[in-house]
């Protein structure tokens, strides 16, 4: 069972105001590729493990990187086949919109995430992806349980975050 049910639609995309337009294409993506990569930009210190001895070392990501806050969605970008320098520029622009500094990114493969199968389900909704157009498509992973609901919903939300951070591997430093 694939937990992700793609929502097919044309995305508006994110226009960076300082002269960079990342989303000019109107091409829509009809189907997610299971090998496709979703990048989650890391802009908070609370989202990764620090290495005081070696700042260049790729570090572990904490599950807080994949906790929706606030709401029930997390923002990701579809970056398969995109030059890493361009991904970095996009990350900096995103961080700027958040009034924060880019630290790095965590990459997920849709295939890895789709293997998520909790033994029990509290929420009546499955996770899904709301996608925009390629390239540099801003997308949301949505339908996380709401933190304002019962503790069981909170636990399920953290399970999703833990699973995602398990497959994401190390922080890719900007």
């Amino acid at each position: 069972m694939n937990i992700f049910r793609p929502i097919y639609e044309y995305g508006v995309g994110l226009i960076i105001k300082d002269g960079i337009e990342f989303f000019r294409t109107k091409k829509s993506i009809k189907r997610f590729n299971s090998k496709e990569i979703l990048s989650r930009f890391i802009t908070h210190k609370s989202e990764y493990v620090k290495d005081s001895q070696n700042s260049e070392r790729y570090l572990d990501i904490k599950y807080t990187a994949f906790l929706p806050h606030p709401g029930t969605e997390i923002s990701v970008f579809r970056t398969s086949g995109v030059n890493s320098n361009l991904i970095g520029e996009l990350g900096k622009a995103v961080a700027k919109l958040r009034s924060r500094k880019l630290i790095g990114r965590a990459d997920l493969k849709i295939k890895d995430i789709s293997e998520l199968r909790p033994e029990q389900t509290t929420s009546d909704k499955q996770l899904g992806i709301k996608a925009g157009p390629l390239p540099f498509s801003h997308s949301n992973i949505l339908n996380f349980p709401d933190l304002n609901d019962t503790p069981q919903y909170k636990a399920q939300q953290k399970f999703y975050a833990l699973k995602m951070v398990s497959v994401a591997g190390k922080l890719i430093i900007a």
Partner: protein
Amino acid sequence: MAPDLLEFPDQRRKIIPKVFDSASIDSEDFNCVIVVESGGGSPDLEFNLSANERWEFDDSIVESNLDAPDKGFPTLEDSISSNELLGYDDGALEIKPYGQGMVILPSTIDNYIWEDNLRFYAISRKLQEAISDFYEDYLYGPDGQQLPDRKGRFDASYIEAEKMLKDLPHRTPIPELVVEPNGEIGLEWRKGKKGFLISLQGEGLATYAGYLGESNQFYGVRGLEKSLNKFVLGLIKEVN
């Protein structure tokens, strides 16, 4: 399913007796000797630290010099400088985490540092870092005002997290400490793709989640009763 109980060795060991030149504690000439010994009365290894010198330590110090029954469980990895080891006449020991305020450890007996005290130092340092990050990342709203709901939840969660950390056997692998955006404090153990977390709600409840392989994925809620630590220890064993 996770086992009910994991027996981490819980025998206290004194690993670092200290010898201070008490006459020059506050001077730049301060020197101290860190001695690792197995309890037989004679030192196995000595480290001489001069002023401003930093000593890197990890569990290999214990394992290579002592007959450690739990070889393979890295629990300590940090460093401390001679200037952070301060001795007092009454035998109390004080350790200042580097760059993170001050943590006062309980008095040592006969000028020994107990291994679990050193472990507590490492945990305290991680916790201080997580708290500092939480304050910077999430505690204040866009208008610069502190968010009272988050602060209140954090304060309540902190008490519960501190108790859990103290109650775990002192050879338990040290978790990553996480302060979540809403102020709850999580303890996360991870090795490779396997991981387990428990998060203190500040309301007498803990949420937990684990990913221990395709056939062992779970989440749930438990009260902070005595059996919780056994449950947690069993899952830490599964991760490691």
